[in-house]
């Protein structure tokens, strides 16, 4: 026990001033706010305790994976950034270093899950839910939240360990989170739900909702879980703990090279100081690509760009095909299945990944010294926003292309909606505003992960203001509204929409210029 506390306190010291606990606190507040905003509605007080057990896992499935991806990345990235692995390995056994990270996450997830449990119990009593909570059920909910979240932490920690470029970990978190959320709506694929650790929040839900169109929510009921998810959770725990250790054990101090199995034979290179043979100099060429595109060669962000819309398309189509009796508007029904969650919950963090990656290139080392003596601030910022916008356009375009392919696969005989081009154009225009906002955040906040977490919060805020009718209040709501993510029939005032999109883009563009001009260069 003493060892456990010592290890955790060491990790706590390392993460001082990293705002790590702020990440979990903000996400906890978000979960509380979202789930609790209509808790005191008199219609729900009668079954409030059960309703909470139904709602919270759902919200957890959307928010916790990203929170954990950000959290794990912050913990591991300090070692990559500080190049401290080689120092640590001379002072501590490798297993202790590994356990340090595991214990820290364990403690954090335990505190998070406990806080969530206490908050919802307290809120239930505060708003006056009828009766008393079923403590066994709440105990089970706590155990599930903790164990599933801890597995996700282990998974994210391993990815953050292997790839020093944290874009990979954040993209993995986003892709997994999306798959998990979508799989909640596809009970027909139980094995897949159990297999994907992000899907465990949905697979382990034990409260169902009695609902119909006429009477709305009638009540909630307990469901038995005969899907064997418990075994999958336990199995994943062992796989991740042991697998993570095996990976870490074989990791060199300067990164993971797959050295135990897949070492690439080194290329023969001459030693410039000792080799006297005069090399033959071939002229080099200048590529035609813009500078900012040259910088993102071999970037891992393309992984999320391809995978995330693909997950949305595959599972969205699966869900559509399994619910043909409810979803009757062919192309339009399929569109909501593809675009709803993607645009509100995943596109903003994905744009956040793009923006964070683009600015991280300059935040690294002393790159600011080099870039600011060679290019103007206007050009630099414009380049960043344009590249971010171009990838956003490709992502949304890819989503639309997959939508058409899936529609044809589903056997639609009607033509593809002509409005699709307008949705895409508006989505991209709103997306550019999000790009500018995220670029600003990633410029000011040097952390890779924090702006991505903020993007997720932004996506939610966008949904909230949209629900209240303030469609143009945030850039995040503009993008989803432009894509008609939750309602293909929504009438958008194009003039207002374009004006607000341009306003936000210009605002954040000018804020970036102002920020760089009025702040001294900071290098690592």
């Amino acid at each position, binding site marked *: 026990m003493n060892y456990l506390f010592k290890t955790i306190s060491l990790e706590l010291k390392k993460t001082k001033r990293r705002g790590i606990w702020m990440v979990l606190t903000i996400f906890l507040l978000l979960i509380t706010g979202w789930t609790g905003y209509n808790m005191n509605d008199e219609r729900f007080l009668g079954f409030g305790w059960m309703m909470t057990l139904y709602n919270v896992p759902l919200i957890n499935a959307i928010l916790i994976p990203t929170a954990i991806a950000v959290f794990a990345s912050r913990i591991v990235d300090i070692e990559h950034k500080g190049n401290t692995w080689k120092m640590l390995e001379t002072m501590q056994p490798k297993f202790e270093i590994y356990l340090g990270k595991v214990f820290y996450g364990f403690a954090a997830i335990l505190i998070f899950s406990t806080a969530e449990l206490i908050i919802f119990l307290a809120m239930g009593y505060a708003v006056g839910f009828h009766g008393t909570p079923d403590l066994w059920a709440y105990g089970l909910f706590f155990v599930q939240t903790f164990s599933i979240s801890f597995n996700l932490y282990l998974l994210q920690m391993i990815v953050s360990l292997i790839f020093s*470029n944290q874009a990979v970990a954040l993209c993995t978190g986003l892709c997994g989170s999306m798959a998990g959320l979508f799989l909640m709506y596809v009970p027909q694929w139980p094995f897949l739900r159990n297999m994907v650790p992000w899907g465990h929040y949905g697979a382990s839900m034990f409260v169902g909702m009695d609902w119909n169109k006429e009477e709305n929510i009638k009540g909630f009921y307990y469901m038995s879980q005969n899907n064997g998810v418990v075994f999958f959770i336990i199995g994943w725990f062992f796989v991740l703990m042991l697998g993570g250790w095996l990976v870490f054990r074989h990791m060199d101090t300067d990164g993971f090279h797959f050295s135990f199995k897949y070492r690439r034979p080194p290329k023969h*290179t*001459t030693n*410039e*100081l000792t*080799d006297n043979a005069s*090399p033959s*100099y071939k*002229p*080099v*060429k*200048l*590529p035609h690509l813009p*500078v900012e595109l*040259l*910088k993102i*060669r*071999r*970037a891992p962000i393309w992984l999320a760009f391809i995978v995330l819309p693909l997950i949305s398309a595959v599972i969205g189509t699966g869900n559509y095909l399994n619910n043909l009796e409810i979803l009757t508007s062919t192309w339009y029904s399929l569109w909501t299945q593809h675009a709803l969650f993607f645009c509100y919950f995943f596109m903003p963090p994905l744009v956040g990944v793009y923006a964070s990656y683009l600015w991280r*290139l300059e935040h*690294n*080392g*002393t*790159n*600011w*010294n*080099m*870039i*600011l*003596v*060679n*290019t*103007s601030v206007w050009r630099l910022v414009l380049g960043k926003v344009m590249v971010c916008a171009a990838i956003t356009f490709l992502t949304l375009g890819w989503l639309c292309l997959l939508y058409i392919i899936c529609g044809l696969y589903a056997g639609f005989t009607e033509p593809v909606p002509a409005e699709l081009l307008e949705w895409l154009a508006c989505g991209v225009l709103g997306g550019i505003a999000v790009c500018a906002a995220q670029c600003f955040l990633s410029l000011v906040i040097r952390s890779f992960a924090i702006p991505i977490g903020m993007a997720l919060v932004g996506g939610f805020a966008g949904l909230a203001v949209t629900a209240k009718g303030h469609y143009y209040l945030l850039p995040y709501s503009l993008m989803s509204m432009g894509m008609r993510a939750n309602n293909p029939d929504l009438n958008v005032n194009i003039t207002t929409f374009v004006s607000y999109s341009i306003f936000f883009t210009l605002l954040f563009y000018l804020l970036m210029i102002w920020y760089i*001009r*009025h702040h*001294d*260069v900071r*290098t690592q």
Partner: protein
Amino acid sequence: MNTNIIETDSLTKGVGSQTRVNHIDLRIPEGCVYGFLGPNGAGKTTTLKLLLGLLKPTAGTITFFGQKMTEQNRLSILKYTGSLIESPSFYGHLTGLENLQIIAKLKKLPAGEITNVLQTVRLYEQKDKKVKQYSLGMKQRLGIAMALLGNPRVLILDEPTNGLDPAGIQEIREFIKNLPIIRQMTVIVSSHLLSEMEQMADMVGIINHGSLIFQGTMAALETQGESLEDAFLKLTGGGESL
């Protein structure tokens, strides 16, 4: 070596106890190697960053090529400078060549310049390797190559021999020494090593606790004490690390 290519007047950064650079008046003649010498933390890098407009001065002015530097003309002035500040800047996931291509495109230089600088720093054979796989010395060479791109009139190098092996250090020192003669460049090179300056510099400026305490030729420095080392220690207070 008559006209000053760079001048600063009362250049200051910070206020009160936070003052990092205090009323510095640099006079750097054209066509010389100007050694900027001082103990660790004396304010060398801060001064060089101020010269490049990477830090905003609290007070004072900077004049490059007879033109007072402002936010508006900063980049047009810096077009004629090359710099390596703190440590080499690079994109580790790109190759050495790709890094140089980026600088060449930003400076609007022809591709031939890249081959030249790669040959100069003897990195041509390693140009297709990712920079994150470079050794410390190779990264330093790449940093120098980036600074040399475009054959600038002024080269500002902050401790350029860091990370190089003895042969590399000697090679770079010789190279810097010859730049004013071969390429008509003015070189400002910072170091905390007096011996290094002795080998390279025509002029020297010594900074300590943010203030310029000596500026003149190496010969003039020698007159301040029994030997160069003695003069330097006397000026900087002696006991501090160099």
